[in-house]
């Protein structure tokens, strides 16, 4: 028997949903017009006033907002509520170093956690469960989001955070974790570690909610087999709230979008034109209920498809496919957003030439990122200590910029492949989008 966290929304008729969306959109547009000069100016430029937005049918008239806009408005430019009403900040990386900071009122935290609670309930979670959250905690939304959702459902919540696999497995066996939340690559790694230790019989896991990075069906089967669970996908982004923007149900054929809070659209990334349901394009979200940091028509750069096809789980919320790629050059490494431009910024700041190559791979279920830099006479010395110290300095600067370790490899001059004079910047060996 399928369980829902908020059945009145999750199984509402399409008409009810649209009515709800229209009312909320109209209010949100008024809200940003009155409280966020950035939106007001953009609307004026587009020849719009709030009166032009009467229902979801008018959504397409609104201008888009992009990650570059978020960067330009950093930190308070998009705030729609006074800071005294905000209770939380979460953050993710921006395109060129300046981070994206998202603000939340208590209302915003609640709706985000409710979205995560829907996801946990959809995988069978109840107050009888022990929910083991191995996403990172802190500025990253993974840990806090699922943690909050788990509380709302009433699960016994284990805020493990990431890393320390031995302790993860010990808590899992000793405390009987039943639902695991982490990145799919860490789930696969945990599965392998549990098998190696011969502890498969000692764990009580039944389901896992895995997101923050792309994964294939093959990986799903691998995780399900290793851990003896059902593995479910979850999608989200800090700009919109965090994990739980959409979530998978028992059918495991795409993720239901919490469209009572976030209206999805698919557009042609080149022209901006809205595409009909079922066509592949760039996913755009409008947050219609958020108070502090509402985004109208935010371009996610994820390439995706939406489908309103009837789902066997009984939910009527529209479904999105797993993202099939990106319309920009963003990479997701260990669940962290990485832009080649961030790496280029570090190299140029440190006086290195812009001849570099980024190699992303997945070794033993864990993402690796390597930055190859061509050696120059300025960097070179007869003394290994000097060269190694420069290499280390670069590694530290990349870590500070990206938030994750990137291996630096110094290579011989002119060895990085160039096509038509411009270097091929990224080699992603993971083949995640099939």
């Amino acid at each position, binding site marked *: 028997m399928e369980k829902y966290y908020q059945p009145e929304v999750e199984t509402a008729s399409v008409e009810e949903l649209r009515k709800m969306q229209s009312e909320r959109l109209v209010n949100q547009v008024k809200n940003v017009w009155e409280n966020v000069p950035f939106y007001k100016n953009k609307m004026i430029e587009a020849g719009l006033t709030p009166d032009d937005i009467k229902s979801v049918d008018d959504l397409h008239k609104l201008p888009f907002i992009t990650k570059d806009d978020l960067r330009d408005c950093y930190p308070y430019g998009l705030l729609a509520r006074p800071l005294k009403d905000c209770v939380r900040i979460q953050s993710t990386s921006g395109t060129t170093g300046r981070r994206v900071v998202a603000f939340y009122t208590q209302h915003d935290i609640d709706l985000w956690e409710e979205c995560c609670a829907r996801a946990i309930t959809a995988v069978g979670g109840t107050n009888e469960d022990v929910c083991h959250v191995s996403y990172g905690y802190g500025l990253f939304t993974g840990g806090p989001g699922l943690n909050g959702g788990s509380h709302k459902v009433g699960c016994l919540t284990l805020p493990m955070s990431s890393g320390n696999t031995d302790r993860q497995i010990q808590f899992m066996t000793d405390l009987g974790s039943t639902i695991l939340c982490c990145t799919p690559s860490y789930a696969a790694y945990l599965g392998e570690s549990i098998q190696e230790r011969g502890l498969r019989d000692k764990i009580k896991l039944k389901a896992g909610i895995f997101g923050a990075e792309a994964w294939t069906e093959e990986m799903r089967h691998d995780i399900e087999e290793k851990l003896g669970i059902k593995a479910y996908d979850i999608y989200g982004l800090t700009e919109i709230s965090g994990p739980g923007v959409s979530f998978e149900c028992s059918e495991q054929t795409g993720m239901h979008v919490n469209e009572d809070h976030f209206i999805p659209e698919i557009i042609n990334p080149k022209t901006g034109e809205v595409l009909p349901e079922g066509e592949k394009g760039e996913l755009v979200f409008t947050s219609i209920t958020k108070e502090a940091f509402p985004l109208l028509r935010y371009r996610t750069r994820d390439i995706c498809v939406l489908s309103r096809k009837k789902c066997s789980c009984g939910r009527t919320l529209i479904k999105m496919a797993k993202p099939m790629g990106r319309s920009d050059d963003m990479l997701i490494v260990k669940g962290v957003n990485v832009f080649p431009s961030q790496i280029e910024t570090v190299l140029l700041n440190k006086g290195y030439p812009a001849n570099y190559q980024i190699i992303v791979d997945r070794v033993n279920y864990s993402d690796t990122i390597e930055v190859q830099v061509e*050696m*120059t*006479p300025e960097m*070179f*010395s*007869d*003394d*290994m*200590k000097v*060269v*190694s110290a420069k*290499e280390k300095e670069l590694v530290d600067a990349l870590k500070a910029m990206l938030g994750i370790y990137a291996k630096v*490899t*110094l*290579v*011989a*001059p*002119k*060895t990085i492949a160039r096509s038509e004079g411009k270097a091929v910047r990224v080699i992603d060996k993971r083949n995640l989008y099939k």
Partner: protein
Amino acid sequence: MAVKQISVFIENKAGSLAKLTEVLSANNINMRALSVAESEDFGIIRLIVDNVYDTVTVLKDEGYVSSVKDVLAVALTDEPGSLSKVLAVLGENNINIDYMYAFTANKPGTANMIVRVEDNKKAGDVLKANGISEIGEEDLTKM
């Protein structure tokens, strides 16, 4: 006095050193000494050659990153204890050695050391005061 040492960057990959020595050989450059310092992904090759100018030009033409550095060269009598004496003198005078390597030439009974220190002049003076003589660029050409 000091002699000129050429350092060359190569990747830590099978065949890279062979390629470098082929380039030198093809250009008729003779090596007096060679030493390798390696990290996980690259190596620094240090060379003492008969013709510094030609070597640097050839390396540049072939796309190598290289640098030239003055290093100390000393001749030792080929007998037990002679290196110890040099090291003791440097140590007593608080001169730290970054790296060193040895080579022999066609002069029987003599071993040669290349020593990389911060201050060549100071190290040279200290050695001289203790009766240890440096080899200069001219001595090398004669080898």
